[in-house]
């Protein structure tokens, strides 16, 4: 596929699982963040890029950076692997925790909860944003997603 002119570009790219939800870590070890939208009319805040406020229908919106730290609002544990086309590891499958993470901006975001003992999670536990590779797609791109993990020291 690659000719001489393009050879400077890496064949594999790091890409987000979905545009408009989070920014990619700019350098190895660098951090990305969740993208938020704030309505200037009603001050409601949303996860991701929106063009209309879901609350008051205003189009006077601004993009903001959502906090990296939140609290578990509620959670559950998926004891069986999700159905295809889930891209995580099913053999061996480790039960995954998922839950709503409440951010200080007043929005609850559904997220995987990672790097934890799923039997020891609790509501109100502090969690931090992680943006990391989740799988490789058919073209060999590294596909990243957002997740949360218990804050260090817990």
């Amino acid at each position, binding site marked *: 596929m690659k000719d001489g002119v393009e050879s400077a570009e890496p064949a594999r790219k790091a890409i987000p699982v979905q545009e408009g939800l989070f920014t990619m870590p700019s350098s190895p070890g660098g951090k990305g963040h969740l993208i938020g939208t704030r309505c200037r009319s009603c001050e409601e805040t949303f996860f991701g890029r929106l063009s209309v406020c879901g609350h008051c229908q205003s189009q006077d919106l601004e993009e903001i950076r959502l906090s990296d730290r939140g609290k578990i609002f509620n959670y559950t544990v998926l004891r069986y692997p999700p*159905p295809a086309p889930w891209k995580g590891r099913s053999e061996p499958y480790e039960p995954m925790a998922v839950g709503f993470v409440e951010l200080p901006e007043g929005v609850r975001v559904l997220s995987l909860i990672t790097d934890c003992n799923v039997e020891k999670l609790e509501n109100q536990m502090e969690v931090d944003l992680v943006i990391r590779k989740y799988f490789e797609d058919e073209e060999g791109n590294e596909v990243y997603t957002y997740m949360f993990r218990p804050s260090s020291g817990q």
Partner: protein
Amino acid sequence: MREVVIAGVGLHKMGRFEGKPYVDMACEAIQMALKDANMAWKEVQAAYCSRMYLPPTTGARVCAAMGLIGIPVWDVESACASGGSALRSGFQSIAGEFYDTALVFGVEKMPRGFMSPENIYDKWQCYIGLSVNPMYFALEARTHMDKYGSTPEHFARVSVKNHKNGSYNPYAMYQKACTMEDIMKSPLVCDPIHLLELCAPNEGAAAVILTTRQVAEKHDAQPVTICTSVVKTPLYPAPMIPPAFQTSAKIESPPLTTLAARQAYEEAAVGPEDLDLVELQDVAASSEIIYTEELGLCPLGEATRLLDEGVTEIGGRLPINASGGLLSNGEPIGASGLRQVVEMDWQLRGQAGLRQVAGAKTGLGHVVGAGPSCGVVILKR
């Protein structure tokens, strides 16, 4: 608006029917409904087909097999609320005097195992695994536990009740009672929900003939009145129903089911205290507890008390899911909401056999599905 009645109902058993075409299943339910209404196929002036997993134009294909009579046929889909949406479509077409007689039917043949999440969720949600329906039921159940002190045992007891009811229903997929131990020892799927507390995807068909009282009486049918049929989508913020992946921590609205129920009670001039039976969306056992409260059948946090006191059993003051609910019947999505309507029609006419709710005169049916949307119907004899 003029009065709309159900003149006849038909049902194909719920379950798995390998090799039996969906057209045959639907036609059996429709023939049964026509016979019940003492009507001929050519008296039907319009048809509404509820389906989700079957192909486009399912409704027209089924009606063609019934005989080409030139009527308009619409497929209606709103995930698990499809039956409620199709019923509303038929209801408004009679109430609004577009037609005198309409057929509303639902049919489904769902793939075995996990349903494809791509019908409901965005691709990225599927890729990272945030695409598991029971996960949403579990999150709602845990919120109810945190807020009101319900327990996994309460949810299991709902499943015991509904499976017991299902054992009296010859149309149910599972006609076998089970014990608390069977349920609590079945595999945990998403904490706190066990496998025997989740409804199964399956196959089935249901049909109802809607018409005016005058036409029904002319045919010597036993009409049941549709007091109202309501369909609602939520107010902001999004409830925790697939495919939502965010919600507001600042703003609260009444739950979607409450919005639909309030409108239905008002339009029907019927209150929760007037109901003799309820068929609701027990997609998970915990959902029955949550929707019992959201429908206003008791104050918030008191559905477990109703369950403990036997109020919601057949023989109790307000039997819920006397048919066995989705837990015993499975959920053939397109057919499920209309199966509830068929069940209530039989109950109100005193034809529900061993699971008959004595003296039932008024019933409420409830479906809620991804999108999300919610349907509530109130029937009266």
